[in-house]
């Protein structure tokens, strides 16, 4: 299987609903990450009448804890084009896909890392020709593996049988579903996505996912469909569980609630809808010091499609490389533990309210 074949498949895919197009296709100025950072910096952000920056509010450098999660972003290729995507992923994003030699370097690094979990993301990582190789290798090294999945990708003809394959290897599915009902999900991801997502959940349930088996864990990831913060995770989980079971007969194991990050397409939407300033100000007002200890950047290494290293997937999408500019081919875990974490204004997204990270709320 080659990337070219995948791209052709996606071009002919008439079943996956799409919410829009990539910023790249639209020729948006926000394709430039420097422009995104400038846009964030241009907003007048105040707290108690004084201009604030993330570092000053934090009161010092953000330092790492122990490395636990090795996160690999296989690239920006995706079958969907959700309106809030911080990756600017889509079917036209074959320009950013992890090359073979980098996949090999990633596998070698996983063999040596002290991290106990490997977290695979994208785009839709399942579209990468080496997706299964990477998982086989990580499972072979005894790692707990997570697939960050958009659900609809599991229904593509080329992925027939993938759910069972993942189940046999005990891969956790961390699936994005903005809301447990149709309107907000479709508003964000495209008309008809909710129904396709439920169909994918049925496949997962049939393979034993989402039924309380720790070897077949199905985690759902929710994010708000607009310029507001997420609901309380524990309360939302109860409501989601009842409603999805009652209305659609599907089950899951746990729910993560994330905030939307003012990056790429969500940043574009904030600008176009006139919500940018108020949303950033809301994040600042909701800054919660108790969210900091559990932030993902403190225990996660983020590897980009080209092998460059980052503190998190959000920094990756803003080209904010890890201190010292390391590459996976010369990854040094001691250097990782000794560094300070690179921060900017988008970081307010992870520290707002109950906190927000790859593992859900942090406070």
């Amino acid at each position, binding site marked *: 299987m080659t990337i070219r074949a995948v791209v052709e498949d996606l071009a002919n895919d008439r079943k996956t609903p799409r919410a829009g197009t990539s910023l790249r296709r639209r020729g948006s100025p926000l394709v430039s990450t420097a422009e995104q950072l400038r846009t964030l910096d241009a907003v007048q952000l105040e707290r108690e009448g004084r201009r604030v920056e993330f570092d000053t509010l934090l009161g010092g450098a953000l330092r790492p804890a122990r490395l636990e999660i090795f996160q690999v972003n296989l690239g920006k290729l995706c079958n969907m084009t959700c309106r809030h995507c911080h990756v600017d992923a889509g079917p036209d994003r074959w320009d950013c896909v992890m090359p073979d030699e980098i996949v090999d370097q990633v596998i070698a690094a996983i063999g040596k890392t002290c991290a106990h979990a490997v977290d695979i993301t994208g785009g839709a990582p399942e579209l990468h020709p080496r997706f299964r190789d990477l998982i086989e290798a990580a499972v072979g090294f005894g790692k707990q593996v997570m697939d960050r999945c958009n659900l609809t990708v599991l229904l593509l003809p080329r992925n027939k049988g993938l759910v069972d394959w993942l189940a046999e290897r005990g891969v956790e599915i961390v699936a994005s579903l903005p*809301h447990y*009902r149709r309107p*907000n999900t479709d508003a964000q991801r495209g008309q008809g996505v909710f129904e396709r997502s439920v169909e994918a959940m049925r496949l997962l349930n049939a393979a034993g996912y989402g039924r309380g088996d720790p070897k077949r864990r199905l985690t759902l990831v929710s994010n708000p469909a*607009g310029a*507001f913060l*997420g*609901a309380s995770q524990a309360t939302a989980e109860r409501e989601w569980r009842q409603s999805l079971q009652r209305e659609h007969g599907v089950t899951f194991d746990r729910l993560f609630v994330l905030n939307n990050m003012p990056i790429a397409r969500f940043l574009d939407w904030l600008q176009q809808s006139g919500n940018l300033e108020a949303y950033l100000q809301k994040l600042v007002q909701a800054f919660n010091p108790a969210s900091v200890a559990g932030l993902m950047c403190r225990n996660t290494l983020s590897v980009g499609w080209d092998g460059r290293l980052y503190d998190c997937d959000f920094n990756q999408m803003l080209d904010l490389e890890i201190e010292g500019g390391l590459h996976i081919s010369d990854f040094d875990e001691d250097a990782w533990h000794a560094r300070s974490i690179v921060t900017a204004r988008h970081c307010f997204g992870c520290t707002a309210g109950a906190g927000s990270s790859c593992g859900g709320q942090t406070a």
Partner: protein
Amino acid sequence: MPGYYDRQHLADFGKIADTSPELGKKFFDYYGSVFADGALSAREKSLIALAVAHAVQCPYCIEAYTKDCQEKGADLEQMTEALHVTVAIRGGASLVHGMQMRETAQKLGM
């Protein structure tokens, strides 16, 4: 003051406790407890508040609880259904008085 309603009053609501602070504190503490998760979820309470806000036609409450419902994970369909509960009760309250009308009219009429 330019008019009877000012958006800033919502943001400044807490200042009402600058006077009679003990009563203010009691009110806001109580208010916070009312909206916490309990036998009803915070989302359900927020939807009730949205419905009541429309019944009492308080623009501050409508703004506050529209936003709060969204943050609690309610979608526009759910919020609109809550509003129709207000409409049904308000409409029903008028209509049920029609029984008084009928009784009076029937008593006097031939």
